[in-house]
């Protein structure tokens, strides 16, 4: 099936098998491997991207469902060699260890602040419910998101 998607500002046109998941299209067809896969039940959130500005799990939808949409992946956040403020906040607050959940976590966190620019700690914890991390115990992830919110 034909699909046209704008990914990180660049248009892509291609033919995909109908069963291709968006995450596999991003990783394998486009070679953008920053978006990770951590489960097969849409539980972990490692594959979170932005679809038309909204954080979604890219393993939960087919590539063809993204036809005509604008996708931002972790690779599309930094501008002119400068990391996005959320990426900087994660670095400054040691919000990552192994880094595998990180791309999805950062995308989810940006999505969270888009909806709620000044969340409480509780709201950050609830807002990131769909993204699992096994290394940090979430403490510094929550701190990173709150820091990014207060820097806005």
């Amino acid at each position: 099936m034909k699909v046209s998607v704008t990914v990180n500002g660049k248009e892509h046109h291609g033919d995909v098998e109908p069963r291709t998941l968006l995450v596999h299209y991003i990783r394998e067809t486009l070679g953008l491997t920053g978006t990770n896969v951590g489960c097969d039940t849409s539980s972990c959130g490692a594959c979170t991207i932005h679809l038309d500005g909204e954080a979604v799990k890219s393993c939960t939808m087919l590539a063809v469902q993204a036809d005509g949409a604008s996708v931002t992946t972790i690779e599309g956040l930094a501008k002119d060699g400068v990391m996005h403020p959320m990426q900087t906040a994660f670095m400054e607050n040691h919000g990552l260890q192994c880094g595998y959940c990180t791309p999805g976590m950062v995308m989810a966190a940006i999505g969270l602040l888009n909806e709620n620019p000044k969340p409480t700690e509780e709201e950050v914890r609830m807002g990131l419910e769909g993204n699992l991390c096994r290394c940090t115990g979430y403490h510094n992830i929550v701190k990173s998101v709150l820091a990014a919110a207060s820097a806005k």
Partner: protein
Amino acid sequence: MTITENKPTNIIGTRLLRREDPPLLTGEAKFTNDLNIPGALHLSVLRSPYAHAKIKSIDVSAALKIAGVIAIYTGKDLQSAWAAPMPCAWPVTTDMKNPPHYPLASDKVNYVGDGVAAILATNETASRDALDAIDVQYEPLKAVVDLEDALSDKNVIHKDLGTNKSYTWPLLVEETPGCVEEAFKKAKYKIKERYVQQRLIPMAMEPRAIAAVPQPFGGDITLYSSTQIPHILKVMSALTLGIPEQQVRVVAPSVGGGFGSKLDVYAEELLCMALARKHNTPVRWVEERTENTQATIQGRGQIQHVELAADENGKITAVRVRIIGDMGAYLQLVTPGVPILGAFLYAGVYDIPKAYDFSCTSVFTNLTPTDAYRGAGRPEATYAIEMGIEALAREMKIDSFELRKRNYIKKEQFPYMAFSGLTYDSGDHLLAAEKAAKMTDLAGVRAQQKKQNVPGATKLLGVGMSSYFEMCGLAPSRVLASLNYSAGGWEAATVRVLPTNKVQVITGTSPHGQGHETSWAMIAAEKLGVAPEDVDVLHSDTAISALGLDTYGSRSLPVGGVAIALACDKVIEKAKLIAAHQLECAAEDLQFVNGTFSVKGSPDRALPLAAIAFGAFTAHNLPDGCEPNLEAQVSYDPPNFSWPFGTHMCVVEVDTETGAVKILKYIAVDDCGNQINPLIVEGQVHGGVVQGIAQALFEEAVYDSDGNLKSSNLAEYLVPAACDVPSITTAHTITPSPTNQLGVKGIGEAGTIGAAPTVMTAIIDALSSLGITTMAMPASPQTVWKTINEATRGGKK
């Protein structure tokens, strides 16, 4: 050419941000499955749906017709591919039973997930489609799932062994023969408790991934794997496949967490290598999460019987422990050693006489093999002694903190020669515990508890604590020899000062989230008087780091980090000879401060390391017999384990109507000696604590009586999310280790060791007014509610 200047550095102990982060934050980092490997065939492994069954027949004809499928192999097809069975490096006793274990089962499957056939296809979709098209006829056998059932030998899994018992490992330490029995007879107080350590799934966020890339004409093979142990994997895979070791290179790219689950030599690694060689083409495999829960090792899995004897003051006079350890279906790399690692810690942080009677019998079950999972034997031991202390305090009707105080090893007793013959390097348990109590506002919480926990109250407050030792920094090689471990416990480091005064550190440790690049650069920077950004840290590739024993058991800093410091010392020694030659003075008249050699008393006669590094490179003016270049290599065998310690406390509120447990406050006071980077230390504690909380409240590999895993994915296995856990208040005391020059101890497992008993003692404390003295883990709302219901309403709804 710009030569980097030497300048004063005071970098150890600072919260330097991690250099690892930008690539990980931007998607630039490459995990194994991100590697672009042209022409690679995809491996899929067909796995047994039965826990225990005979394989009657395997028909692959339909699967072979699927477009893209290249070949399918059964266990029988590959029998000649292996020079040896899959390795177990820890035969804990000379008569330990170890059933032959091959990457694919041939006649019989022994757990759900046991490999039955290997499919190679040109793409992942085809190889996965083929899984459904293979027709395997099984004859199901009765599965052995329960540990006590396994011990009974009513149903023997590995018939050739004649028993389900793998080994019995005793540790009896008695001042005089029979003194343990005597102590129990004479004891004023004694307790006897049974605890169950449920099976846990390590669940690193990156599932395992592998790519084996052969060089068909040269004969070499490179294995890329999401592993914690590239060096061990290299030698073990060479032995198992019968490939000359020098032809194997193992690379661990970015690794997305391990927690012990990637401390193994796995069937899929061996299959990828064997099939890549057979087909003269790269072969790759990536694990699905559901496979991960079944085919990657699990942790814990013990039944513990613990007895304590105490005198009239509550001073512990003897410890007796009997354990049944769950090995699962086969022995993986260090499976049998895990309970043994805990054997030395059932006296916890307490001063006990030589009256210690430990024995562990480990059994095979028809379940996924167990192996090291964060803490490996030590969380289990700590849980048992800390819960035991609580039971003893209840028996004596005194406060458990008071009982701990009466038994703590005192600060002035360090270095402390323990009953076991091991020496605890340094500690101050009371200091850490009192700090934790103060931060918890223990007195305030107790007062609040009196007000709140009144008859009829439905929200009960509880406070829990645990004091722990994390015997880590694995390990002195001679001690490992005495435990029958097949390898040593040293670590290697190379430090090289390049002509431009940039520094290369090559380490044998293999990080997967711990920030070694940052911390190791800090150590070298401090030692050599350069900026940390001028230090490059190379690791996790056996072609670059030829020697090493990798990362596990909180060993990286106290063994690998210390090796780097020692290699820096060697570099400085060599540089000093060159400096003395060029400054025309005696080497012993030189001092080395902030990266510069100067003549003591004549600070103007000085040479920076930068000049010496360049001079060593040009080799124009070196002393006689001095080799060019400034580099040194060290293999460091630690003289002792390192013994981090601390006390954790938490306050919980238990809802007696729903069984829900809410952690209101969690305080972790940890002492890992000197800290290289407190930012990273705190991160390790946060993550460790949450994994311990997860064991206490959420996680369990649940099997049915047929050996089917009911919690086989992340929708069913409850890894806590951010909203399930509290923020963690961390604090430290600093008691340097006297056994290494950095004064450091490990910290990777401390949080996990401390947390589960802290939470569980808090829950029991909350429910004590209902007469509840035990609670199974995980203390899920159902379990808590059921326990309350049984205690208060006689079990009736």
